[in-house]
């Protein structure tokens, strides 16, 4: 895949990630559906495969899951010109997703700590709970169904559903599950 990005496009992407940063209550992963809508469906800067690879590689790697955002910038940059542009893409997406939320957290941390018993602070925290939970499940749904084009592609959603059930109900280490998924895929069963 090869694309051309103008400076205005990079700026638009930066702005989009800044907005998502402010909306990412519950973690950056809750904004993944919107990133998919923006990068894959609307701008055509990323393929479905690259989008899913970004999330999967970041999940397989140690560290905060927010690094999937860096990989999206990396892949957009690769599509637009190569590894150097890829590093620039990492800079754009990571600064975009991190700057607003960390600044806000920094400013609010001490204040919020002192005022954690205020009624509206509790209302915000508790009121968002059902929304944030549904967002996580919706994210899993979108990732599992991204490549489902026909009924023959039932295996990926099935593996996702089985994984979700196992993680929900048992304490099995997540690496076993990721390893099993990799093996199933390697031998072409998925």
């Amino acid at each position: 895949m090869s694309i051309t990005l103008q400076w205005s496009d990079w700026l638009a992407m930066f702005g989009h990630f800044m907005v998502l940063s402010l909306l990412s209550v519950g973690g950056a992963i809750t904004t993944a559906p919107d990133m998919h809508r923006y990068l894959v469906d609307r701008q055509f800067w990323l393929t479905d495969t690259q989008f899913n690879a970004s999330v999967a590689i970041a999940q397989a790697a140690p560290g905060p899951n927010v690094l999937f955002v860096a990989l999206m910038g990396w892949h957009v940059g690769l599509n637009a010109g190569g590894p150097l542009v890829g590093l620039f893409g990492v800079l754009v997406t990571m600064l975009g997703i991190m700057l607003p939320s960390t600044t806000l957290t920094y400013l609010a941390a001490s204040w919020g700590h002192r005022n954690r018993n205020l009624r509206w602070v509790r209302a915000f925290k508790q009121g968002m709970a059902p929304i944030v939970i549904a967002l996580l499940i919706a994210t899993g749904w979108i990732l599992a169904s991204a490549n489902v084009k026909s009924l023959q592609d039932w295996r990926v959603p099935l593996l996702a559903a089985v994984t979700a059930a196992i993680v929900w109900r048992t304490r099995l280490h997540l690496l076993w599950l990721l390893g099993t998924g990799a093996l199933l895929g390697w031998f072409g069963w998925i």
Partner: protein
Amino acid sequence: MTPSPDVPAAEDPPRSQPRSLTDLFVSFTLLALQGFGGVLAVVQRELVEKKRWMTREEFVEEWAVAQIMPGPNVVNLSLMIGHRYFGLRGAMVALAGMLTVPLLVVLLLALVYAQFAGHPGVAGALRGMGAVAAGLIAATGMKLMGALKMHPLGLPLCIALALLCFTGIALLRLPLVYVLLGLGVTACTLTYKKLDR
């Protein structure tokens, strides 16, 4: 210092704290590198139980704020812990520790992936891991559903809000901002009315 009832009992292990900014950076880097599929559990075990930089109660309080704020929760938490000991410099160093080396690792993995992306096995393995990752994220949401039982709005209303949100995002593919603003403001306002003055 005057003794008070809050003073920890003598048998409590002594409180500790990061010795320097370097200690902070290295500690958070090591934390991040141990966290496969979620760093939070590692942060709790290392900082509270092993290093004793904070008590369990302090950890829970900081975590509540980290969750309220937008952004990655664990990253927010590291920022707040760094701030606690070394101010703005501490916050930035903790953030850098959490992200720098893991970012390099993830880029390295992406490069390795690109070298072998043409191999049908690798493409398949990624597809399989992607499916598992999708399940992991959904399961995180499912695990948290238990927290709604004690919700001031009551379980039925919570489920209705969650179903509306799921429908809007997963099925209708509406932009996140409208769903968050529409349903979020509704949910928070309803909760506000239910809470004690």
